């Protein structure tokens, strides 16, 4: 690969782990891909010790994940790596779909201004991992490279993982093990755990091509283009002028033949013209499936990312949902490990993230069926929709060339408090908070950076005088709740409320996006999902909603 030099991470001796009996750790993570690394970084930010194992000593090899969604970028910001990745990556919001050479459909991931992050950035997975590894090491994650999991024992109060390393075999036991070992998940297989779904009968050729062309940074998908008749093609721009192209080949294609440069180069020449200079950096063939584990929690083993669920790539819902898994897991695991919540809270990790996985699988499957129809009748309907899309708006909306990853709205979660008051807009219980430009103490900042990490109770008022002394006392009392809740006041105008952070809704976008009226209240979880909302602040109501948001798992002090 010309445009990138793979790092080789320094091996750390496991001599300290070669003991009998084995060492026991509070938290072990297996797999230093994006999701394992994100979980490890989050653990350190919460003050937890973490031991992270990976069977390799470098980053993701080849061309894999490309698109990181706004929600993921917000999570990466919180982990401390968002800015450099956004600077390196190629940001985009617009996707265009073509039938032959005619554009039939267009989407805009973030049509409104007033958000910190764009709808998507494109960046090679190796850059993402490199940044995450550096951050993990900086925060003191204990990473052991070249350790391959070869066995696992699961018990009610701990799990033990056996490893093969350059210094010999050893085992480590842990109170909790996060399993982030990828789609083939050796640990999942060793435990014989169910993973159900289905495989799609199609193949795609992917190529990373370095070239300097004047195309805008937009996602483009073609049905039946002249440069690849009868099939689909997807184009994305990544960093370093590396373009990622996916060519649909069909199930009958011979992968070994198709990946040969002498077969790939003519395809590229037909697509970009003979005059364009390009360099082929990577070629591979992939097939895909949509499936998920029945249970993401198995005693003290918590499955995240591809180990727990896989989707076809149309829609970029793989890495993006994995990173949301880690985000949804770590605050719960932290509370359990600190003795503030019982383990039952971790069953809700499964409930919520399996729901999200099902939504991702549903949308990815639908896109896959449209892009690669499984039967003659299905193909006929697909082609009819594409035909009609040339002229008719309703058909354009049916054209499914990928429903791109958006944050999971966990609307059915048992941790939500059902609305009793009426609110317009999308900020329902279960929704992740929408961003808005704010000010605090005269400093401009984003809501998304100001809320999260712990429970918060947001109260909106037109004027700060509406926070009378008694309300202020009640708000401050939230800090002493069984799980501390930080009160935050949001107002149209700047001012001071003694002991409470005030955010100013400078452009009125918070009020608009949240349908905020004076006195409205939101209980927000550490992962920035809304747990509850009301039109009036009432201390006991908020405390009850906290109990529900904790899945009734709060351990009495």
């Amino acid at each position, binding site marked *: 690969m010309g445009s990138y030099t793979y790092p080789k991470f320094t091996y750390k001796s496991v001599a300290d782990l070669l003991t009998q009996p084995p060492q026991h750790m509070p938290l072990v993570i297996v797999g230093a891909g994006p999701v394992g690394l994100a979980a490890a970084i989050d653990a350190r930010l919460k003050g937890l010790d973490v031991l992270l194992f990976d069977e390799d000593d470098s980053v993701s090899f080849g061309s894999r994940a490309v698109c990181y969604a706004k929600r993921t970028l917000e999570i990466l910001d919180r982990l401390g790596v968002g800015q450099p990745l956004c600077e390196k990556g190629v940001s985009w919001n617009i996707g265009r779909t073509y039938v032959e050479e005619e554009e039939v459909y267009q989407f805009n991931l973030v049509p409104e201004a007033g958000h910190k992050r764009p709808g998507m950035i494109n960046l090679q997975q190796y850059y993402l991992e490199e940044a995450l590894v550096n951050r993990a090491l900086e925060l003191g994650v204990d990473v052991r490279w070249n350790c391959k999991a070869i066995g696992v024992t699961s018990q009610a109060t701990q799990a033990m993982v056996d490893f093969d390393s350059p210094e010999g075999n050893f085992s480590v036991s842990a109170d909790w093990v996060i399993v982030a070992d990828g789609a083939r998940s050796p640990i999942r297989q060793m435990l014989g755990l169910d993973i159900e779904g289905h495989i799609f009968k199609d193949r795609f050729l992917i190529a990373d091509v370095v070239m300097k062309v004047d195309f805008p940074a937009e996602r483009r998908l073609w049905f039946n283009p002249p440069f690849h008749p009868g099939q689909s093609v997807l184009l994305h721009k990544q960093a370093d002028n590396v373009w990622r192209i996916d060519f649909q080949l069909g199930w009958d294609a011979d992968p070994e033949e198709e990946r040969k440069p002498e077969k790939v180069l003519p395809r590229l020449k037909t697509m970009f013209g003979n005059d364009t200079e390009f360099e082929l950096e990577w070629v591979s063939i992939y097939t895909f499936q949509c499936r998920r584990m029945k249970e993401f929690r198995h005693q003290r083993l918590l499955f995240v990312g591809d180990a727990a669920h896989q989707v076809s790539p149309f829609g970029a819902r793989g890495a993006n949902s994995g990173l949301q898994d880690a985000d949804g897991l770590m605050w719960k695991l932290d509370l359990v490990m600190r003795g503030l919540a019982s383990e039952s809270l971790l069953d809700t990790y499964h409930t919520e993230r399996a729901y999200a996985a099902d939504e991702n699988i549903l949308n990815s499957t639908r896109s896959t069926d449209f892009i690669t129809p499984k039967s003659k009748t299905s193909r006929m309907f697909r082609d009819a929709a594409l035909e009609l899309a040339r002229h008719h708006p*309703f058909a354009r909306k049916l054209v499914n060339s990928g429903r791109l990853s958006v944050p999971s709205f966990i609307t059915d979660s048992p941790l939500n408090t059902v609305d009793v008051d009426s609110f317009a807009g999308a900020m329902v219980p279960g929704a992740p908070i929408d961003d808005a430009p704010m000010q605090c103490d005269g400093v401009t900042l984003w809501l998304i950076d100001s809320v999260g990490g712990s429970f918060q109770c947001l109260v909106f008022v037109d004027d700060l005088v509406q926070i009378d002394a008694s309300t202020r006392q009640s708000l401050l009392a939230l800090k002493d709740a069984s799980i501390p809740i930080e009160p935050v006041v949001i107002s149209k105008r700047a001012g001071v409320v003694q002991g409470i952070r005030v955010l100013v809704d400078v452009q009125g976008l918070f009020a608009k996006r949240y349908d905020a009226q004076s006195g409205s209240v939101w209980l927000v979880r550490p992962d920035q999902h809304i747990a509850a909302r009301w039109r009036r602040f009432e201390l006991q109501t908020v405390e009850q909603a906290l109990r529900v948001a904790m899945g009734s798992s709060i351990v009495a002090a």
Partner: protein
Amino acid sequence: MNLQPNFYETGKRYFRDFTPGDDFYEALIETHRDLTDEQSALVNAKLILLLSNHIGDIHILREAMALARADIAPAT
């Protein structure tokens, strides 16, 4: 006839504008699960007759038929 996106399901809340259309489309494809091509053609014909009767207005139906046949050049 109505050529704007029009799919919905009463009582369902949609967070993405493409979802109702996708819900319909999936149901349509599912209707043909495990059928032979001949069986599918028959199902489609029945579906057209059922839906056409539900719409009722022959003026609209003629319009739909014309739009469906547009841009298709017959063999002879």
